[in-house]
Protein backbone atom coordinates (compact mmCIF):
# COMPACT_ATOMS: atom_id res chain seq x y z
CA UNK A 1 0.00 0.00 0.00
CA UNK A 2 1.23 3.48 -0.92
CA UNK A 3 0.49 6.82 0.69
CA UNK A 4 -2.21 8.65 -1.25
CA UNK A 5 -0.26 11.89 -1.03
CA UNK A 6 3.41 11.01 -1.60
CA UNK A 7 3.34 7.36 -2.82
CA UNK A 8 5.78 6.30 -0.10
CA UNK A 9 4.93 3.09 1.83
CA UNK A 10 1.78 3.54 3.93
CA UNK A 11 1.55 2.80 7.64
CA UNK A 12 -2.22 2.92 7.89
CA UNK A 13 -5.22 2.23 5.70
CA UNK A 14 -8.32 4.35 6.26
CA UNK A 15 -11.20 2.71 4.40
CA UNK A 16 -13.57 5.61 5.17
CA UNK A 17 -11.29 7.87 3.12
CA UNK A 18 -10.63 5.08 0.60
CA UNK A 19 -6.96 5.91 1.12
CA UNK A 20 -3.71 4.91 2.80
CA UNK A 21 -1.19 7.26 4.39
CA UNK A 22 2.45 7.39 5.43
CA UNK A 23 3.19 8.69 8.93
CA UNK A 24 3.79 12.29 7.85
CA UNK A 25 0.63 12.60 5.80
CA UNK A 26 -1.49 10.74 8.33
CA UNK A 27 -0.49 13.32 10.96
CA UNK A 28 -1.27 16.08 8.48
CA UNK A 29 -4.74 14.61 7.93
CA UNK A 30 -5.40 14.55 11.71
CA UNK A 31 -4.23 18.15 12.17
CA UNK A 32 -6.49 19.30 9.31
CA UNK A 33 -9.51 17.48 10.70
CA UNK A 34 -9.03 19.03 14.15
CA UNK A 35 -8.41 22.50 12.70
CA UNK A 36 -11.59 22.13 10.62
CA UNK A 37 -13.67 21.12 13.64
CA UNK A 38 -12.33 24.06 15.67
CA UNK A 39 -12.98 26.49 12.81
CA UNK A 40 -16.36 25.21 11.64
CA UNK A 41 -17.83 25.13 15.15
CA UNK A 42 -16.03 28.26 16.42
CA UNK A 43 -14.70 26.30 19.40
CA UNK A 44 -11.99 28.73 20.53
CA UNK A 45 -9.32 31.14 19.31
CA UNK A 46 -5.56 31.34 19.78
CA UNK A 47 -6.01 33.84 22.61
CA UNK A 48 -8.28 31.58 24.70
CA UNK A 49 -6.97 29.75 27.77
CA UNK A 50 -7.84 26.07 27.35
CA UNK A 51 -8.25 23.38 30.02
CA UNK A 52 -8.00 19.82 28.68
CA UNK A 53 -9.76 17.04 30.57
CA UNK A 54 -6.97 14.45 30.78
CA UNK A 55 -7.48 10.79 31.67
CA UNK A 56 -4.17 9.26 30.60
CA UNK A 57 -5.95 7.50 27.73
CA UNK A 58 -5.27 7.94 24.03
CA UNK A 59 -7.96 10.50 23.24
CA UNK A 60 -7.24 13.04 25.95
CA UNK A 61 -3.47 12.89 25.44
CA UNK A 62 -3.91 13.04 21.65
CA UNK A 63 -6.17 16.09 21.79
CA UNK A 64 -3.80 17.85 24.19
CA UNK A 65 -0.87 17.02 21.89
CA UNK A 66 -2.80 18.19 18.81
CA UNK A 67 -3.80 21.51 20.39
CA UNK A 68 -0.25 22.29 21.49
CA UNK A 69 1.00 21.18 18.07
CA UNK A 70 -1.46 23.61 16.43
CA UNK A 71 -0.18 26.46 18.62
CA UNK A 72 -2.89 26.72 21.29
CA UNK A 73 -2.25 27.41 24.98
CA UNK A 74 -3.60 24.41 26.85
CA UNK A 75 -3.20 23.14 30.42
CA UNK A 76 -4.47 19.76 31.63
CA UNK A 77 -6.58 18.57 34.53
CA UNK A 78 -6.43 14.97 35.74
CA UNK A 79 -8.98 13.68 38.24
CA UNK A 80 -7.77 10.78 40.40
CA UNK A 81 -10.90 8.63 40.48
CA UNK A 82 -9.61 5.95 42.86
CA UNK A 83 -10.25 3.03 40.50
CA UNK A 84 -7.45 0.90 41.98
CA UNK A 85 -4.32 0.21 39.92
CA UNK A 86 -6.03 1.53 36.79
CA UNK A 87 -6.15 5.04 38.25
CA UNK A 88 -2.57 4.85 39.51
CA UNK A 89 -1.32 3.81 36.08
CA UNK A 90 -3.39 6.32 34.13
CA UNK A 91 -2.21 9.15 36.36
CA UNK A 92 1.38 8.12 35.66
CA UNK A 93 0.82 8.34 31.90
CA UNK A 94 -0.77 11.80 32.23
CA UNK A 95 2.01 13.10 34.46
CA UNK A 96 4.81 11.75 32.24
CA UNK A 97 3.17 13.22 29.12
CA UNK A 98 2.98 16.67 30.73
CA UNK A 99 6.47 16.53 32.26
CA UNK A 100 8.15 15.45 29.02
CA UNK A 101 6.59 18.39 27.18
CA UNK A 102 6.80 21.02 29.89
CA UNK A 103 3.01 21.32 30.11
CA UNK A 104 0.95 22.21 33.18
CA UNK A 105 -1.11 19.33 34.62
CA UNK A 106 -3.37 20.02 37.58
CA UNK A 107 -4.53 17.04 39.66
CA UNK A 108 -7.65 16.65 41.82
CA UNK A 109 -8.03 13.53 43.98
CA UNK A 110 -11.57 12.41 44.82
CA UNK A 111 -10.36 10.43 47.84
CA UNK A 112 -8.02 13.06 49.23
CA UNK A 113 -10.17 16.11 48.58
CA UNK A 114 -13.73 14.78 48.77
CA UNK A 115 -13.40 11.57 50.82
CA UNK A 116 -14.62 9.03 48.27
CA UNK A 117 -13.71 7.18 45.08
CA UNK A 118 -15.72 5.91 42.11
CA UNK A 119 -16.16 2.28 43.28
CA UNK A 120 -17.40 3.51 46.67
CA UNK A 121 -19.70 6.07 45.06
CA UNK A 122 -21.21 3.37 42.85
CA UNK A 123 -21.88 1.15 45.84
CA UNK A 124 -23.11 3.94 48.12
CA UNK A 125 -25.53 5.45 45.62
CA UNK A 126 -26.62 2.36 43.70
CA UNK A 127 -25.57 4.09 40.48
CA UNK A 128 -23.60 2.32 37.77
CA UNK A 129 -19.93 3.31 38.16
CA UNK A 130 -19.85 5.25 34.85
CA UNK A 131 -22.70 7.44 36.09
CA UNK A 132 -20.99 8.35 39.38
CA UNK A 133 -17.72 8.87 37.51
CA UNK A 134 -19.25 11.09 34.82
CA UNK A 135 -21.09 13.26 37.32
CA UNK A 136 -17.94 13.74 39.41
CA UNK A 137 -15.83 14.64 36.39
CA UNK A 138 -18.37 17.09 34.94
CA UNK A 139 -18.68 18.94 38.23
CA UNK A 140 -14.94 19.09 38.91
CA UNK A 141 -13.94 20.09 35.38
CA UNK A 142 -16.53 22.90 35.47
CA UNK A 143 -15.26 24.03 38.86
CA UNK A 144 -11.59 23.93 37.85
CA UNK A 145 -12.26 25.89 34.67
CA UNK A 146 -14.23 28.59 36.45
CA UNK A 147 -11.84 28.81 39.42
CA UNK A 148 -8.78 28.84 37.16
CA UNK A 149 -10.09 31.48 34.76
CA UNK A 150 -10.06 29.18 31.72
CA UNK A 151 -12.16 30.15 28.69
CA UNK A 152 -13.01 26.66 27.59
CA UNK A 153 -12.89 22.99 28.62
CA UNK A 154 -11.72 20.56 25.94
CA UNK A 155 -12.63 16.88 26.08
CA UNK A 156 -11.26 14.04 23.97
CA UNK A 157 -14.59 12.72 22.74
CA UNK A 158 -13.98 11.35 19.24
CA UNK A 159 -16.22 10.43 16.33
CA UNK A 160 -16.84 6.93 17.72
CA UNK A 161 -17.85 8.32 21.12
CA UNK A 162 -20.27 10.80 19.62
CA UNK A 163 -21.75 8.31 17.13
CA UNK A 164 -22.29 5.79 19.96
CA UNK A 165 -24.01 8.36 22.19
CA UNK A 166 -26.13 9.48 19.24
CA UNK A 167 -27.05 5.86 18.55
CA UNK A 168 -28.12 5.35 22.17
CA UNK A 169 -30.12 8.57 22.27
CA UNK A 170 -31.82 7.73 18.98
CA UNK A 171 -32.68 4.19 20.14
CA UNK A 172 -34.54 5.77 23.05
CA UNK A 173 -35.72 8.82 21.05
CA UNK A 174 -34.46 10.96 23.87
CA UNK A 175 -34.97 14.22 22.02
CA UNK A 176 -33.70 16.48 24.80
CA UNK A 177 -30.35 14.68 24.84
CA UNK A 178 -30.34 14.61 21.04
CA UNK A 179 -30.84 18.38 20.98
CA UNK A 180 -27.88 18.95 23.26
CA UNK A 181 -25.48 16.49 21.62
CA UNK A 182 -23.40 19.22 20.02
CA UNK A 183 -19.62 19.69 19.67
CA UNK A 184 -19.86 23.03 21.50
CA UNK A 185 -21.82 23.69 24.67
CA UNK A 186 -21.75 27.44 25.18
CA UNK A 187 -20.83 28.97 28.52
CA UNK A 188 -23.88 29.85 30.61
CA UNK A 189 -24.69 30.85 34.17
CA UNK A 190 -21.91 29.15 36.07
CA UNK A 191 -20.94 26.58 33.42
CA UNK A 192 -17.84 26.98 31.23
CA UNK A 193 -17.84 26.49 27.45
CA UNK A 194 -17.14 22.84 26.57
CA UNK A 195 -15.90 21.65 23.20
CA UNK A 196 -14.94 18.43 21.41
CA UNK A 197 -12.24 19.00 18.78
CA UNK A 198 -11.90 15.28 17.89
CA UNK A 199 -15.38 14.80 16.47
CA UNK A 200 -14.02 14.33 12.94
CA UNK A 201 -11.50 11.62 13.92
CA UNK A 202 -12.15 8.00 14.85
CA UNK A 203 -10.91 6.08 17.83
CA UNK A 204 -8.59 4.04 15.59
CA UNK A 205 -7.13 7.23 14.14
CA UNK A 206 -6.50 8.65 17.62
CA UNK A 207 -4.76 5.50 18.75
CA UNK A 208 -2.66 5.65 15.57
CA UNK A 209 -1.82 9.32 16.27
CA UNK A 210 -0.42 8.27 19.64
CA UNK A 211 1.61 5.39 18.19
CA UNK A 212 3.10 7.57 15.44
CA UNK A 213 3.83 10.46 17.82
CA UNK A 214 5.37 8.15 20.43
CA UNK A 215 2.76 8.96 23.08
CA UNK A 216 2.48 6.32 25.80
CA UNK A 217 -1.05 5.99 27.11
CA UNK A 218 -3.03 3.54 29.18
CA UNK A 219 -4.20 0.84 26.79
CA UNK A 220 -6.11 -1.22 29.30
CA UNK A 221 -9.83 -0.59 29.42
CA UNK A 222 -11.26 0.99 32.57
CA UNK A 223 -12.39 -1.98 34.72
CA UNK A 224 -15.54 -0.05 35.65
CA UNK A 225 -16.55 0.42 32.01
CA UNK A 226 -16.26 -3.24 30.99
CA UNK A 227 -19.47 -4.49 29.45
CA UNK A 228 -21.24 -1.14 29.52
CA UNK A 229 -23.93 -0.29 27.00
CA UNK A 230 -21.81 2.37 25.33
CA UNK A 231 -19.21 -0.25 24.33
CA UNK A 232 -21.96 -2.39 22.83
CA UNK A 233 -23.11 0.55 20.69
CA UNK A 234 -19.54 1.09 19.49
CA UNK A 235 -19.18 -2.54 18.50
CA UNK A 236 -22.48 -2.42 16.61
CA UNK A 237 -21.43 0.72 14.73
CA UNK A 238 -18.01 -0.76 13.94
CA UNK A 239 -19.73 -3.80 12.48
CA UNK A 240 -21.64 -1.46 10.15
CA UNK A 241 -18.47 0.53 9.42
CA UNK A 242 -16.60 -2.58 8.27
CA UNK A 243 -19.34 -3.37 5.77
CA UNK A 244 -19.81 0.24 4.71
CA UNK A 245 -16.82 2.48 5.47
CA UNK A 246 -17.78 6.04 6.35
CA UNK A 247 -20.99 5.05 8.11
CA UNK A 248 -20.02 6.57 11.49
CA UNK A 249 -18.94 9.88 9.96
CA UNK A 250 -22.03 10.23 7.79
CA UNK A 251 -24.26 9.27 10.73
CA UNK A 252 -22.85 11.74 13.27
CA UNK A 253 -21.67 14.57 11.00
CA UNK A 254 -24.92 14.27 9.04
CA UNK A 255 -26.81 14.64 12.32
CA UNK A 256 -24.92 17.86 13.03
CA UNK A 257 -25.56 19.21 9.54
CA UNK A 258 -29.16 18.25 9.02
CA UNK A 259 -30.85 17.17 12.25
CA UNK A 260 -29.36 19.32 15.00
CA UNK A 261 -30.59 22.59 13.42
CA UNK A 262 -34.15 21.25 13.60
CA UNK A 263 -33.70 20.68 17.34
CA UNK A 264 -32.11 24.08 18.08
CA UNK A 265 -35.18 25.49 19.83
CA UNK A 266 -35.34 22.47 22.10
CA UNK A 267 -31.62 22.75 22.86
CA UNK A 268 -32.17 26.31 24.09
CA UNK A 269 -35.04 25.27 26.36
CA UNK A 270 -34.03 25.25 29.99
CA UNK A 271 -30.66 26.88 29.34
CA UNK A 272 -31.46 29.62 31.83
CA UNK A 273 -33.07 27.35 34.43
CA UNK A 274 -30.19 27.07 36.88
CA UNK A 275 -29.82 27.96 40.54
CA UNK A 276 -26.86 27.92 42.90
CA UNK A 277 -26.29 24.89 45.12
CA UNK A 278 -26.69 25.79 48.79
CA UNK A 279 -23.61 23.72 49.70
CA UNK A 280 -20.97 24.43 47.03
CA UNK A 281 -22.46 27.38 45.15
CA UNK A 282 -22.12 25.66 41.78
CA UNK A 283 -24.79 26.27 39.18
CA UNK A 284 -27.35 23.50 39.28
CA UNK A 285 -29.67 22.55 36.43
CA UNK A 286 -33.33 21.92 37.13
CA UNK A 287 -32.94 18.23 36.31
CA UNK A 288 -30.09 17.85 38.83
CA UNK A 289 -31.33 19.92 41.73
CA UNK A 290 -32.92 18.42 44.80
CA UNK A 291 -34.21 19.93 48.01
CA UNK A 292 -32.46 18.78 51.21
CA UNK A 293 -33.93 20.28 54.39
CA UNK A 294 -35.53 22.97 52.26
CA UNK A 295 -32.27 23.88 50.47
CA UNK A 296 -31.35 23.34 46.84
CA UNK A 297 -28.44 20.88 46.80
CA UNK A 298 -26.69 19.84 43.58
CA UNK A 299 -26.32 16.22 42.52
CA UNK A 300 -22.56 16.27 43.11
CA UNK A 301 -22.89 17.42 46.73
CA UNK A 302 -25.48 14.73 47.37
CA UNK A 303 -23.15 12.16 45.80
CA UNK A 304 -20.26 13.32 48.01
CA UNK A 305 -22.42 13.23 51.13
CA UNK A 306 -23.54 9.63 50.59
CA UNK A 307 -20.22 8.32 49.27
CA UNK A 308 -17.92 9.89 51.87
CA UNK A 309 -20.04 8.38 54.62
CA UNK A 310 -19.67 4.86 53.12
CA UNK A 311 -16.79 2.51 53.94
CA UNK A 312 -14.31 2.29 51.01
CA UNK A 313 -15.23 -0.36 48.43
CA UNK A 314 -12.69 -2.22 46.30
CA UNK A 315 -12.82 -2.21 42.50
CA UNK A 316 -13.47 -5.95 42.32
CA UNK A 317 -16.72 -5.63 44.24
CA UNK A 318 -18.36 -3.46 41.60
CA UNK A 319 -16.68 -4.39 38.31
CA UNK A 320 -17.96 -6.63 35.55
CA UNK A 321 -15.71 -8.80 33.43
CA UNK A 322 -15.29 -7.56 29.86
CA UNK A 323 -16.09 -9.76 26.89
CA UNK A 324 -12.35 -9.94 26.10
CA UNK A 325 -11.57 -11.08 29.65
CA UNK A 326 -14.24 -13.76 29.47
CA UNK A 327 -12.85 -14.84 26.11
CA UNK A 328 -9.29 -14.97 27.50
CA UNK A 329 -10.50 -17.08 30.42
CA UNK A 330 -12.20 -19.45 28.00
CA UNK A 331 -8.98 -19.68 25.94
CA UNK A 332 -7.04 -20.70 29.06
CA UNK A 333 -9.70 -23.19 30.14
CA UNK A 334 -9.79 -24.75 26.67
CA UNK A 335 -6.03 -25.53 26.71
Amino acid at each position, binding site marked *: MKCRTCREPAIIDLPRHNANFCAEHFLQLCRRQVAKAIHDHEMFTASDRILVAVSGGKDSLAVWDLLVDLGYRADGLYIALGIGEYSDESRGYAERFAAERGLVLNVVSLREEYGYDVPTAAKATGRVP*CSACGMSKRHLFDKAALDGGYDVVVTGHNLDDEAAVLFGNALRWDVEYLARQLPVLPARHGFPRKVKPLIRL*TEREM*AAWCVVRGIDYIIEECPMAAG*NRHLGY*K*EALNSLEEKSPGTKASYYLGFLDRMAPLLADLAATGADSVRPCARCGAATGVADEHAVDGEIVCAFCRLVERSAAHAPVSVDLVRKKSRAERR*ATMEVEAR
Partner: protein
Amino acid sequence: MKVILRNPRREIVIDGRRRVHALLAELELAREGHLVIRNGTLVPGDAELDRDDVIEIRPVISGGA
Protein backbone atom coordinates in the same frame (compact mmCIF):
# COMPACT_ATOMS: atom_id res chain seq x y z
CA MET B 1 5.17 -15.20 14.95
CA LYS B 2 4.56 -13.96 18.45
CA VAL B 3 1.31 -12.06 18.80
CA ILE B 4 0.61 -9.87 21.82
CA LEU B 5 -3.05 -9.30 22.62
CA ARG B 6 -4.48 -6.84 25.16
CA ASN B 7 -7.32 -6.51 27.62
CA PRO B 8 -6.15 -8.67 29.22
CA ARG B 9 -2.55 -8.82 28.04
CA ARG B 10 -1.57 -12.25 26.71
CA GLU B 11 0.66 -13.78 24.05
CA ILE B 12 -0.04 -16.41 21.45
CA VAL B 13 2.13 -17.98 18.74
CA ILE B 14 0.89 -18.22 15.15
CA ASP B 15 2.66 -20.52 12.70
CA GLY B 16 3.62 -19.25 9.25
CA ARG B 17 3.24 -15.95 7.43
CA ARG B 18 0.05 -13.91 7.28
CA ARG B 19 -1.22 -10.66 5.88
CA VAL B 20 -2.54 -8.27 8.55
CA HIS B 21 -6.19 -8.50 7.50
CA ALA B 22 -5.97 -12.31 7.40
CA LEU B 23 -4.48 -12.43 10.91
CA LEU B 24 -7.26 -10.22 12.27
CA ALA B 25 -9.91 -12.32 10.55
CA GLU B 26 -8.35 -15.52 11.92
CA LEU B 27 -8.49 -14.10 15.43
CA GLU B 28 -12.04 -12.79 14.83
CA LEU B 29 -10.97 -9.22 15.58
CA ALA B 30 -12.59 -6.25 13.83
CA ARG B 31 -10.15 -4.12 11.83
CA GLU B 32 -11.97 -0.93 12.81
CA GLY B 33 -11.43 -1.75 16.48
CA HIS B 34 -7.70 -2.59 16.34
CA LEU B 35 -4.26 -1.39 15.27
CA VAL B 36 -1.56 -3.81 14.24
CA ILE B 37 1.98 -2.89 15.26
CA ARG B 38 5.00 -4.83 13.96
CA ASN B 39 8.22 -4.44 15.88
CA GLY B 40 6.97 -1.09 17.19
CA THR B 41 5.72 0.33 13.85
CA LEU B 42 2.16 0.56 12.51
CA VAL B 43 1.41 -1.60 9.50
CA PRO B 44 -1.56 -1.42 7.07
CA GLY B 45 -3.97 -4.22 6.23
CA ASP B 46 -2.08 -5.70 3.28
CA ALA B 47 1.30 -5.87 5.06
CA GLU B 48 2.78 -9.37 5.15
CA LEU B 49 3.88 -10.51 8.58
CA ASP B 50 6.83 -12.89 8.82
CA ARG B 51 7.21 -15.79 11.19
CA ASP B 52 9.96 -13.97 13.11
CA ASP B 53 7.93 -10.80 13.68
CA VAL B 54 6.65 -9.67 17.05
CA ILE B 55 3.15 -8.34 16.51
CA GLU B 56 1.05 -6.31 18.90
CA ILE B 57 -2.67 -6.17 18.19
CA ARG B 58 -3.86 -3.14 20.10
CA PRO B 59 -7.57 -2.58 20.75
CA VAL B 60 -8.64 1.02 20.25
CA ILE B 61 -12.11 1.06 21.75
CA SER B 62 -12.43 2.82 25.08
CA GLY B 63 -15.44 2.69 27.33
CA GLY B 64 -15.75 6.30 28.37
CA ALA B 65 -18.30 8.70 26.97
